[in-house]
């Protein structure tokens, strides 16, 4: 088994996949804690469907680099969703559900109408469940991912205290002079970047898992925001790494293997949390 692993690791595309996978898992888990606590667990799912719709549009328009369209569209939707969460007529969960299924439907419709590819269902399937494209990353993709990840991590560390204040009590933060609107915007843009990045890895149906599982798992174990954040980052990295290695060894789909590992980790954390509390 180790030989098989060593053989695979000698290929640069496998190494790239591991690097990118771990980075994406790290970034998504950082904001996961905030999103879960703000009752926006489902936003990852909603936004990834938006990204799916945007990809469909980009395909129809025959854009060579669909990032140009997908990233801004997703970011705008993220801003709208997080902003209306507080006082809107349509509550947060309903608006997420609406945008999510709406763009999924339109995306598929557009792809169907103007399909140029002979393997339509294959294309759709790989966008929804994560493609093998994580195994066909170019050096440029890896660099892009690296730069964006470092950006996300630095922003998160610099604004950590503000993100905490806005998450715990937005009204208090606003009343005492914190520009909560700006930080919500920041969170929205970052989450959009992460989701667009993560689409390649696990696909749009499974993205929520990367965002929420590490956060939920570490919330079973710790009672401090800092510990929860650090633990969820570590857990997410470990799960992503294990998942990618397992998927290589067992030739299973990358995305769903990572998520399966996340679920198992969540189960373990629940158990440990119970034991800890009863002790």
């Amino acid at each position, binding site marked *: 088994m180790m030989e098989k692993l060593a053989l695979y690791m000698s290929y640069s595309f496998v190494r790239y996949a591991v690097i990118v996978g771990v980075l994406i898992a790290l970034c998504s888990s950082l904001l996961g804690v905030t999103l879960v606590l703000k009752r926006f667990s489902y936003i990852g799912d909603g936004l990834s469907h938006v990204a799916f719709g945007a990809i469909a549009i980009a395909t129809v328009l025959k854009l060579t680099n669909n990032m140009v369209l997908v990233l801004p569209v997703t970011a705008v939707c993220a801003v709208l969703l997080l902003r209306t969460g507080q006082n809107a007529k349509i509550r947060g969960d309903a608006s997420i559900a609406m945008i999510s299924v709406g763009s999924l439907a339109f995306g598929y419709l557009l792809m169907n109408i103007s399909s140029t590819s002979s393997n339509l269902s294959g294309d759709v399937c790989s966008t929804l469940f994560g493609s093998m494209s994580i195994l066909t990353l170019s050096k440029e993709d890896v660099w892009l991912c690296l730069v964006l990840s470092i950006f996300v991590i630095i922003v998160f560390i610099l604004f950590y*205290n503000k993100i905490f*204040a806005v998450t*715990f*009590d937005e*009204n*208090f933060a606003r*009343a*005492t*002079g914190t520009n909560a609107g700006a930080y919500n915007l920041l969170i929205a843009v970052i989450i959009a970047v992460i989701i667009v990045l993560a689409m390649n890895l696990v696909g749009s149906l499974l993205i929520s898992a990367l965002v929420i599982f590490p956060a939920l798992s570490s919330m079973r174990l*710790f009672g401090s925001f800092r510990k929860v954040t650090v633990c969820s980052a570590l857990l997410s990295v470990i799960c992503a790494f294990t998942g990618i290695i397992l998927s290589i060894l067992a030739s299973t789909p990358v995305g769903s293997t990572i998520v399966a590992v996340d679920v198992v980790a969540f189960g373990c954390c629940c158990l440990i949390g119970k034991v800890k509390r009863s002790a």
Partner: protein
Amino acid sequence: MSLITVDRLSVGYDGVAVEKDISFTVNKGDYLCIIGENGSGKTTLMKTLLGLQDPLKGTISVGEGLTRKEIGYLPQQTLVQKDFPATVREIVLSGCQGRSGLRPFYNKREKALAWENMERLGIAGLADRCYRELSGGQQQRVLLARALCATRKVILLDEPVSGLDPKVTVEMYELIRALNKEGITIMMISHDIGAALEYASHILHIGENFFFGKKEDYLNSSAGKQFMMQQKGGDVQ
């Protein structure tokens, strides 16, 4: 010059006024209780005072070196906070957020201030405990300590004793009275007319009958008499 002067203020949502023509002043060291029936606009008034929503009409002005951002706030607990994984220290420290501006981390002075306020409210021993594991009274103290980090002058309290048992309620009121004695101006929304009359120096009654003035005068006003009657009737039921 008063600390806070409210002049013919109308508050409400989406252009529809819930309460019109509210005028009152708050001076340093006052203990003002805001009372009124359910739906009379108490919470809306508080949100407007805090700058969370704009007034429909009228003005709120501050004096004596107070800025609008220096009003501490003790909100009612939200659903999000009930299971929030954060330590007491983290939450109290977040009260310093407003004064730290764009600086990413808290400095020594802010950490010292947070610690001072935790000791002041008797929760220093709980500093590393998780907020969600605390009792209702302890949680209120944590939020009060956070409010004290944001201000040295005025605190707005929104129903500070709701959901607390009688013994803890009295402790909470005594704590607020002690803060008032230390020179912090208190503005409190309350359902509890009895406590309002016992602790407050001024009463603001909004709703059908408007009243603003000293506690002693309130008892003789028509608004006060009527409200007391209703409360007594309610107690009998």
